[in-house]
């Protein structure tokens, strides 16, 4: 019995020692290997996830750009080519058939040629504005400029159109307000906001105000136009807006203006807010961080 007891205990001891050795071996040799392996796998997983996200984002951006391009091509064919064709036809007719035309019709056609060519100029400028900023490697630099002067300059481009509609321009930005900002994007955004205001205002005024806070510059473009509904504002802010040419109140608009505004403001980290009520004018505020 005793003999058996001893051998049984040493037997247990051997098992115990063997177990300890195994555990130690696993802990010191195999586990580190595993641990390393698991860590590497985890790292790789995270890496690929990030890459995937980046590629997806890039893809979305490219797709969006592509949609904008398609939209532009459609605008060019509908709003550039056919008006040009008819401007040509109309002026040629005035030159060749002047005697057949009543003076009244001649005048009507000439003033239309003047209007249409101005519209074409504005539209082409805007298409160019958008294309210019599509270069990946564009280098944007801030510079100093006089905001009061800039607004006056933009006003002067639209002076003729405003006079025709009887709309007054008001620039309340005080003289000599110098900004240190991305000049060209700010100019293009203001140009588009003022053009929009002008297109959707029948009478009254368009007012630009500017102010400074600790964090940045605020510029407001206010009009007395037909305003927008909540739905229309959401539509402008939505990502899908890029292909939409839904017109405000059945008026002509190709959606290019806000497309450019949104694109450029994002580029310079600026924000914008639209406040508007149907038939009660619109105020668009842009915020440029310092």
């Amino acid at each position, binding site marked *: 019995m005793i003999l058996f007891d001893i051998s049984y205990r040493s037997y247990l001891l051997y098992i115990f020692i063997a177990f300890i050795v195994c555990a130690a071996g696993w802990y010191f040799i195999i586990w580190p290997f595993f641990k390393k392996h698991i860590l590497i796998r985890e790292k790789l997983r995270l890496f690929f996830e990030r890459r995937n996200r980046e590629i997806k984002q890039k893809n979305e951006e490219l797709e969006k750009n592509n949609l904008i391009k398609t939209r532009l091509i459609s605008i060019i064919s509908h709003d550039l080519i056919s008006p040009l064709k008819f401007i040509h036809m109309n002026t040629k007719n005035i030159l060749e*058939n002047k005697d057949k035309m009543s003076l009244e019709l001649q005048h009507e*056609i000439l003033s239309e040629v003047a209007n249409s060519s101005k519209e074409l100029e504005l539209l082409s400028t805007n298409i160019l504005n958008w294309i210019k900023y599509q270069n990946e490697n564009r280098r944007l630099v801030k510079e100093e400029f006089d905001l009061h002067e800039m607004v006056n300059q933009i006003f002067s481009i639209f002076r003729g159109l405003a006079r025709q509609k009887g709309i007054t321009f008001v620039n309340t930005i005080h003289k000599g307000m110098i900004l240190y900002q991305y000049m060209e994007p700010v100019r293009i955004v203001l140009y588009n906001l003022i053009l929009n205001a002008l297109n959707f205002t029948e009478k009254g005024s368009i007012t630009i105000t500017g102010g400074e806070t600790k964090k940045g510059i605020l510029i407001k473009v206010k009009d007395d136009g037909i305003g927008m509904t909540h739905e229309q504002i959401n539509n402008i802010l939505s990502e899908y807006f890029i292909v939409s040419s839904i017109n405000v109140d059945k008026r002509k608009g190709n959606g290019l203006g806000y497309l450019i505004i949104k694109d450029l403001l994002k580029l310079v980290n600026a924000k914008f807010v639209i406040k508007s009520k149907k038939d009660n004018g619109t105020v668009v505020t842009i915020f440029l961080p310092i």
Partner: protein
Amino acid sequence: MQPNIIIADDHSIVRKGMKFILQSILGYNTITEVSTCNELMNEAVKKRCTHLLLDVIFPDGTSLEVIPNIKQLIPNIRIVIFSMQLPEVYSEAFRQYGVTNYLSKSISEEDTIAYLKKFLNNETALPVTGNMPSKNNPFATLTPRELEILHYVLNGQKTKMISHTLNVGMSTISTLKKRIFEKTETDNLKQLLELALLYNINF
């Protein structure tokens, strides 16, 4: 009877060009100009028009939507489609709505004048004008209703909005949309847009 003509086009420069041809060359003086579908409906009835020069795409819709209404209100009106859109895509759809005259904006001024002269003299069976049609334009197989929807789809409108604009049930719009994608063999909006550009569909 002196024709009472209405020109419906969203570009005023185009309207002036046509007005010149009608007034100074062909000698017609009662001419009304409109720039949207809405105005067209109002003016056509008010002025009791006899002849209509009609573009396809307007800021507030397409002429496919208004033709049935106009024909109901003024049964004897003579309509000619005057558009940049390709006849091979649209002329069949308009024919189904009873409009057989199709004058392409891309033809020469002389041909335009000759065509309009016949149109205003109430001559029938005018030829469809335009450039050499492409034989297998995938959009040519679309029905009038599908072309109507196509315009809104290409403009990025969602089913709900189209249903709201046209006052048609969402399920009908979905079915029509599905058929457009099937017939043009496209899978998504992006492919459809590219195909539309390739085959010169304006929207």
